[in-house]
């Protein structure tokens, strides 16, 4: 056996897969059953990753997976506010992992959204599941492959220029008992298409929820795909996401990853594999943590081909006893000449009980490249603080203004005004500056 975690939750899962498979599984296509079988065996052998696993050194899952998580029957999401004010977008809601047709809008021409049964019966996508996120080492990915209950596909047709963004709200609402929600989406942005996907994550959960969300994305030649993730999850949700993005020749991918909720655990594995030449990848991240929150962002930008550009900026503030992990891998493979790869992670550490583990990891195997990375952990700028106080602004307000400014640096780069407003509002709410007259 490996150095994994083999707790009660693990045992329940093993038992569930081996003995209690739901009927729906029997009607699944054979290729999927095979993938699930293989993934299950991997998970069974490895267990949940423990801190002995280098990729999980700073995130102790055992602490978060102590509850008796089960698959549970889910109900509606009427109470959760998942709207973004003044945001002109098509809306789709995914409630507890499942597409909620009654809460969703029709989509513009060129954009299709398929729920589990449509996704699995469409021959165009047969075998796609698990073919982009194909890491054979990751037991957390295997967990999702083996158990994902729901699966949806977002398809953007070749040459479709879709102006109206798609807003997918992911909502978790467990009320009965600790629940396990594994699900997956596939995004295919075909050649020369352009689209914007905004994903927001919300919860109203009375009982603990453990979410395993995997998103596989394929950005075809010369496609432009803007994707934003805004996480506002509440105190009962443990959120683990794996996102695997394949970028082909001349494609552009923008991703923002903003955490402004109160959830105790977030672990994001965001992998961007640059398969074609001339691609562009821009990654933004922000986190504002308080209490005992633990947020772990692992990003990987894998330059496999020449002439690709990547740019990454993550900024975060830590208060109280919170813990942030940033692990930013940038690989520049031998073929990836003329790569431009920049990465930065800046942290503001505002409590001596908070912890940051920031590790930029640049591995370069090509010689004609421009790369840089940097990471900082700093305290509040006392000169700035004094400047504000010297103008009559009280200590508390001055601190909040400076914190807001630090994160606002990221938020102000979001290109959609309604999204800037929305995230600025979340930021103010979290900093308790929303009741200040500073607008």
């Amino acid at each position: 056996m490996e150095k994994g975690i083999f707790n009660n939750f693990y045992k329940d899962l093993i038992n569930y897969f081996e003995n209690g498979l739901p009927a729906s599984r029997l009607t699944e296509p054979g290729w999927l059953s095979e993938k699930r079988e293989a993934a299950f065996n991997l998970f069974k052998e490895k267990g949940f990753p423990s801190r002995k696993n280098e990729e999980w050194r700073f995130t102790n899952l055992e602490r978060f997976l102590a509850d008796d998580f089960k698959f549970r029957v889910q109900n509606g999401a009427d109470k959760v506010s998942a709207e973004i004010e003044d945001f002109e977008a098509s809306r789709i809601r995914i409630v507890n992992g499942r597409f909620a047709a009654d809460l969703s809008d029709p989509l513009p021409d060129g954009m299709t959204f398929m729920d589990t049964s449509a996704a699995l019966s469409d021959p165009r996508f047969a075998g796609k599941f698990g073919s982009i996120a194909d890491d054979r080492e990751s037991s957390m990915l295997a967990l999702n492959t083996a158990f994902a209950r729901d699966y949806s596909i977002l398809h953007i047709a070749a040459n479709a220029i879709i102006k109206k963004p798609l807003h997918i709200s992911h909502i978790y609402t467990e009320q009965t008992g600790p629940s396990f929600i594994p699900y997956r989406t596939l995004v295919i942005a075909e050649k020369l298409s352009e689209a914007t996907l905004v994903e927001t994550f919300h919860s109203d959960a009375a009982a603990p929820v453990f979410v395993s969300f995997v998103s596989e994305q394929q950005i075809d030649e010369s496609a432009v795909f803007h994707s934003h993730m805004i996480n506002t999850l509440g105190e009962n949700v443990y959120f683990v996401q794996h996102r695997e993005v394949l970028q082909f020749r001349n494609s552009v991918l923008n991703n923002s990853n903003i955490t402004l909720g109160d959830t105790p655990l977030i672990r994001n594995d965001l992998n961007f594999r640059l398969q074609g030449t001339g691609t562009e990848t821009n990654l933004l991240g922000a986190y504002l943590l308080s209490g005992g929150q633990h947020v772990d962002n692992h990003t990987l930008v894998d330059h496999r081909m020449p002439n690709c550009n990547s740019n990454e900026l993550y900024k975060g503030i830590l208060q109280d006893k919170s813990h942030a992990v940033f692990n930013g891998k940038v690989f520049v493979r031998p073929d990836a000449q003329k790569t431009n790869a920049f990465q930065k992670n800046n942290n503001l550490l505002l409590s001596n009980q908070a912890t940051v583990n920031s590790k930029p990891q640049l591995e370069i195997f090509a010689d004609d490249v421009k790369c840089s990375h940097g990471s900082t952990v700093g305290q509040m700028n006392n000169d700035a603080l004094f400047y504000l106080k010297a103008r009559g602004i009280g200590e508390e307000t001055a601190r909040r203004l400076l914190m807001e400014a630090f994160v606002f640096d990221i938020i102000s780069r979001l290109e959609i005004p309604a999204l800037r407003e929305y995230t600025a509002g979340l930021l103010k709410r979290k900093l308790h500056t929303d009741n200040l007259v500073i607008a």
Partner: protein
Amino acid sequence: MLNINDLQASVEGKEILKGISLRVNAGEIHAIMGPNGSGKSTLASVLAGKESYEVTGGNVLFEGKDLIEMAPEDRAREGLFLAFQYPVEIPGVSNINFLKTAITEIRAYKGLPPLSSREFMNLLKEKQELVELKTSLVNRSLNEGFSGGEKKRNEILQLAMLDPKLAILDETDSGLDIDALRIVANGVNKLRTENNAFMLITHYQRLLDYIVPDFVHILYDGKIIKSGTKELALELEEKGYDWVKEELSVQASHSL
């Protein structure tokens, strides 16, 4: 208004102010001159309440209240203003929100309601014209990417907006071209009343051609070694600091 009595202060264990006494009354303008490193900015910082400076002796009364005991924000709310020699750039905090927050907090301290948006904008427009600062700068992040002169004019805009009783201008004239200097000086002259007072820290007589001081003090090695009227500044310009130092050593040898 301001009564400094034998003020001594140090930073990182090093004594910098070595017993300063100075009295500023309403309606007066005092110029403080002195060579580099003599302690002019230190005096200004100590008055404004910068935490890294330790007051080791003496006292300061501002409108009868013990200034040294007050938090920096309360000093500002009581009507003390320091135009910084090196204004800090604060990315992400917009100039306009900053001004509004400052005014709101100062008014709340005095038990006044916040200004309405319109009142605020009207006030801003009026004061902006006074210092001829472009609206694009007012909407930008605080001092970020401002030129030296723009930063200094922004300090004067804040001064005009907050309308303090005592304003200390720490080398606001340095780095200004002659047009900007005139604008700043005009601004100060217009803001000047019988009820407020100014302390101008400067190296140059040039500023004092535009803003005529009632008193000139020379600060040297943490002490005020000579005080006089505006003629002192002219004499200083002509003869340099060595002249004062010589005079000082003559006095010192006399008293032996």
